[in-house]
């Protein structure tokens, strides 16, 4: 197998006395979807922040396409092909949906007209095109989640970090998003996804990495992981088991 697109090597991230991510290692192969799961507060978002450049790791490093990217700022990482969404959505509230996406499109399309055209296409894909001219603040949660994905996609990334993009969507909406994610995978995008909705994460992930109290407690295919007693106890609870 080729070199993995992303390698997380013994990453530790501390906040003062609290170790939010504790010596976590795993890798993501090109073209696969890896699910990152774990109880609330396990350190998933923190790990995303490390990978996408928002935090420098306290220890360890992150290798992306063969280069050590730990400590590089997010805007540089966007440039090398890492796109991400935020669990707490961050729309540019005072701008329209189209403008929001256009800003991301600038990365690959420095001309404004090109960027705008590209943004339209992204919005068509994500199903927000008919809301393009409303202010981003006026979107519902579902809309904002979709806007998050649109912005990340407009960067034309090769690697996508999705932090709970399905959470809060009703089943039909969720299904649409899942469809979109599968489509992206089909195009060769590599995806690392955090999600608590089992129906979603179990279906789309090729592999799962499980965190608990900052530590990796399991890794494997969905079926392997869901039968792991540690994971069941820490994460799924008895009922699901």
């Amino acid at each position, binding site marked *: 197998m080729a070199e993995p697109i992303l390698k997380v090597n013994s990453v530790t991230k501390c906040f003062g006395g609290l170790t939010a991510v504790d010596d976590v290692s795993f890798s993501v192969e090109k073209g696969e979807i890896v699910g990152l799961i774990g109880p609330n507060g396990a350190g998933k978002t923190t790990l995303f922040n490390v990978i*996408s*450049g*928002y935090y420098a790791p306290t220890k360890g490093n992150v290798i992306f396409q063969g280069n050590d990217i730990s400590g590089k*700022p*997010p*805007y540089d990482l*966007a*440039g090398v092909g890492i*796109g*991400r969404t*935020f669990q707490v959505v*961050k*729309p*540019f*509230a*005072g*701008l*329209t949906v*189209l*403008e929001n996406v*256009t*800003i*991301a499109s*600038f*990365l*690959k*399309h*420095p*001309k*404004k007209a090109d*960027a*705008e*055209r*590209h943004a*339209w*296409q*992204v919005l*068509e*894909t994500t199903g927000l*095109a*008919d809301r*393009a*001219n409303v202010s981003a603040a006026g979107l519902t949660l579902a809309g904002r989640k979709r806007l998050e994905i649109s*912005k*990340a*996609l*407009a*960067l*034309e990334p090769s690697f996508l970090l999705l932090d709970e993009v399905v959470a809060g969507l009703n089943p039909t909406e969720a299904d649409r998003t899942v469809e979109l994610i*599968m*489509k*992206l995978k*089909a*195009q*060769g995008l590599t995806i690392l996804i955090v999600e608590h909705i089992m129906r979603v994460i179990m279906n789309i992930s090729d592999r799962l990495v499980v965190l608990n109290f900052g530590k990796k407690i399991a890794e494997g295919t969905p079926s392997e992981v869901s039968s792991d007693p540690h994971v069941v106890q820490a994460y799924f609870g008895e009922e699901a088991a």
Partner: protein
Amino acid sequence: MKNRGATILAIIGAALLILPLVVHDTFVLRVLTEGVMWIGLAIAFDVIAGYTGYLNFGHGAFFGIGAYTIGILMMQAHLPFWAALPAGGVAAGIVALIAGIPTLRLKGAYFAIATWALSRAIQQLALNMEMTGGPDGMRLEAFLNPQFFYYLMLITVGATFAILWYLLERAPFGLKLKAIREDEEGAKALGLNPTKLKMQSFILSALPTGILGGIYAYWITFIDPSSTLGDLVSDQAVVMVVFGGMGTLFGPALGAILIFAFKTIFWAYLSDFQLLYLIILGALIAISVIFIPNGLWGTLVKRKAGATRPEQKAEPASEPAALSAVAAPEEGN
């Protein structure tokens, strides 16, 4: 729509250009010169405040730095005005660069007050230096040609307006700044470097302000710390921009025109009620904030419907490679 706007602008521009040929009244020219200067100061201020979201309460410092640079270069280095003028802008730009690196890390009110402190510090510096003449200020050689200053101001502000219009409304730069204004952290994930963008906008705001300060110095012939480095420019710019509408170019220009006109008319023709002026101006500001929080421009000109959706037909042919897959029709699955 766009054409009509351009036509109106062209007519206003042409009218302003030929005006001195028709109007010989030097007082009117002086008032217009100052009015145009305020338009320039307001739009330059809005680059950092309205577009980028950093309320600079020390905008006046750039003005004063420009004024003093020209004063010192002309009176002490005996440079001709034309040689000194660009230096005014450059000096303001350099100060923006040096001060911006640390200051732009601050947010919201902290930034506002740090810039205020900085401008006060610069004023104190001018009060305590030999080169500036200290509290006595500095006199420049008088060259009182009203037409000259009118045209110089008009061309400088016109050029500033055009350049800013291009950069902020036509080029991606303006939208990038707005992204910074809305959410700096979020913008980083989209490949924007906030530090760099903020820096650029701060310098872009300082440069024309410094040049206007330089023209002012030569025009008024006397500068001192309280008039050029005091709060006047900063305060007035804030009021004009907020009144007119932040984050646009026409708003601040409109705000500058109206506030300046109000001030001037009151000053010239109702000077017996000078104290009333303060009361009315204050009340006007307060009331306008309550009733037109988007500024006059934002209220008058409702945001236009926005970009139109390109026709579906354009889709397959013009798609960039990376996305074509994303947008690929259903059967691609």
